[in-house]
């Protein structure tokens, strides 16, 4: 195979120190806002519950020197993680969260795709307004918007009254405090996070590609399958991550709209943390949740990168 040397991109001239600092800056913020809190949470998850403030032990005391570190180290244990595997509540909460997040993501994708497509295809001068309308809900508190759904979904709420008036149903539907309400809440709340990346990838789609496909004998619906959809995959993947990840750990929506049947890990975590004041166990739940999300996503992205490298 013939390969030509590509021109090597030259680094811009400038102070080498500044260049170095600029390159380290993202790592610094990641360290400060991600790694340090994670290490703290991880440490708490290895501790044991105690009647003190903060409610766990051991605490690292440097005053006692090497001896103090040794006592601290001996105080840490995997007990909380072992406990998580022993009580089936946690496993079913994790699975139920993943299930709810998965189906919410799929529904959000199907709702968002036509919206994003329509936005990207609408006249240029309308697009900033449409984009603004998608972002507009963020200007009101998330909590209030979720509360507003109670008024819509409850048995004498707006939706039921409308359906009764239309004669579609004879008696009010029970939607509030069910999983259905949780799905509605999650899809509603995270829809903009699905629309925006989809819009971004559809908007930059070169119109001449669609014309070329049509010119080569593809009817419009087939152009969508063969060209538009494959080329919007980066947006689909980004949107799915942006919805799925926060949805798995969602606490507010299942708490407000869900019922007793709704089992989600975010709610379990909240109960452990605030009701039971079991910070170590709550931390262990959080660490496992993080691993459940980070490991598959990292593997997926490495796979994607590898595939791109192959082509």
């Amino acid at each position, binding site marked *: 195979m013939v390969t030509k040397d590509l021109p090597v991109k030259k680094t811009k001239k400038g102070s080498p120190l500044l260049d170095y600092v600029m390159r380290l800056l993202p790592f610094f913020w990641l360290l400060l806002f991600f790694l340090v809190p994670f290490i703290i949470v991880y440490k708490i998850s290895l501790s044991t519950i105690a009647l003190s403030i903060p409610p766990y032990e051991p605490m690292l005391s440097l005053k006692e020197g090497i001896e103090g570190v040794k006592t601290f180290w001996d105080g840490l244990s995997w007990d909380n993680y072992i406990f998580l595997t022993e009580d089936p509540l946690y496993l079913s909460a994790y699975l139920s969260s993943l299930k709810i997040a998965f189906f919410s993501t799929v529904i959000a994708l199907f709702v968002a795709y036509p919206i994003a497509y329509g936005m990207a295809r609408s006249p240029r001068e309308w697009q900033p307004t449409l984009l603004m309308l998608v972002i507009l809900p963020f200007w009101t508190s998330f909590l209030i918007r979720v509360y507003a759904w109670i008024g819509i979904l409850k048995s004498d709420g707006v939706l039921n009254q409308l359906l009764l008036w239309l004669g579609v149903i004879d008696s009010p539907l029970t939607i509030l405090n069910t999983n259905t309400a949780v799905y509605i809440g999650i899809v509603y709340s995270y829809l903009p996070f699905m629309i925006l990346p989809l819009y971004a990838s559809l908007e930059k789609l070169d119109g001449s590609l669609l014309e*070329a496909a049509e010119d*080569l004998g593809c009817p419009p619906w087939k152009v969508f399958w063969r060209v538009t959809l494959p080329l919007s995959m980066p947006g689909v993947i980004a949107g799915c991550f942006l919805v799925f990840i926060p949805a798995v750990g969602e606490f507010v929506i299942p708490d407000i709209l869900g019922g007793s049947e709704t089992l989600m890990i975010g709610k379990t975590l909240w109960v452990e943390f605030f009701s039971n004041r079991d910070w170590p166990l709550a931390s262990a739940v959080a660490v496992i949740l993080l691993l459940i999300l980070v490991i598959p996503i990292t593997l997926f992205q490495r796979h994607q990168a590898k595939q791109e490298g192959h082509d």
Partner: protein
Amino acid sequence: MAKKPIGPVRRAFAPWDDPAQPAFIEFRNVTKRFGDFVAVDDLSLTIYEREFHALLGGSGCGKTTLMRMLAGFENPTSGQIFLEGQDLAGIPPYRRPVNMMFQSYALFPHMSVEKNIAFGLLQDKMPKADVDKRVKEMLQLVKLEPFAKRKPHQLSGGQKQRVALARSLAKRPKVLLLDEPLGALDKKLREETQLELMTLQEDLRMTFLIVTHDQEEAMTMADRISVMDHGRILQNDTPATIYEMPNSRFVAEFIGDINILEGQISKKEGDQIQLFSSVLGDHLDIVQSIDVNVGDKAALAIRPEKMRISFDKPEGPGINAIPGEVWDIAYMGDVSIYHIKIAEAVTVRSIVANTTRLVERPITWDDKIWLSWNRDAGVILTR
């Protein structure tokens, strides 16, 4: 349709001179409006089978719109378009037997070179083995066999251009539409590709319609050129006719370099015409069969290479000679362009081939010289 055998000489191909030849593509009184803007204005054009036709004009002249209407991406506001006698109205782009090579190439970025080329064939439900065979042929044709598995972003501009060409040819369309196909290539590659396209068109015996703003490109490749401006065709002729006998100032000035002397027809006897130029205060002789009357305002257009310069006044019948002064000389290597002042604030250009070395050329700045040309070298323009 009886196919006339085409010899190796391109000049032998002139179906437009044969009234019995049926039209292959016909635009009949086609108008296209975008809101208030008239992109194509009541235009009629006939293109023959196996013709290499160029639509030439500046941006916004309607050439691209005309091509897009043939491809089916735009519908005419009024008028009809025929292909082999069939009215194309209502036929969507994906059912028209024409393929287009896009200016941006429009290669599918998520498909390899071979998948791009196979795309159109798979839409026709061609058997897999035949698709593979055709793709291979196409790759051979554009000399890209080693690149079959590459993605478009791994190709150079010239290679992308060839993939786009192969993809648009793969379905063996009745007409290949080329939208500024060489615009993104550098000069050397462009010249090579021009020759390749011409050879290809002759080998494949296909009808090519090219849109370009580059007059040199149109002159080199096309059998006939339609010079367009403001949605109309000003002149539709062979490159030689367009160059030698432009029918309007726009065409004369758009194609190549030209000197224009304004004046008035002072005498007309058959094709022997005299034009009086007030700036020169002289009558100029022209031989041209053209419908003009004495007293009409007109202009004489002469290509710079047809104007000679000399120290002595050339004598003889059929020669126009006017005195002038060398104002400036632009040395271009192969030729020199002499700017000759023939009256106050009026200069004309004469191109002289540098047949000898620089030191031996006598005419230089401020020299008083004679500018001369044959009576049949120029053309009268009334528009």
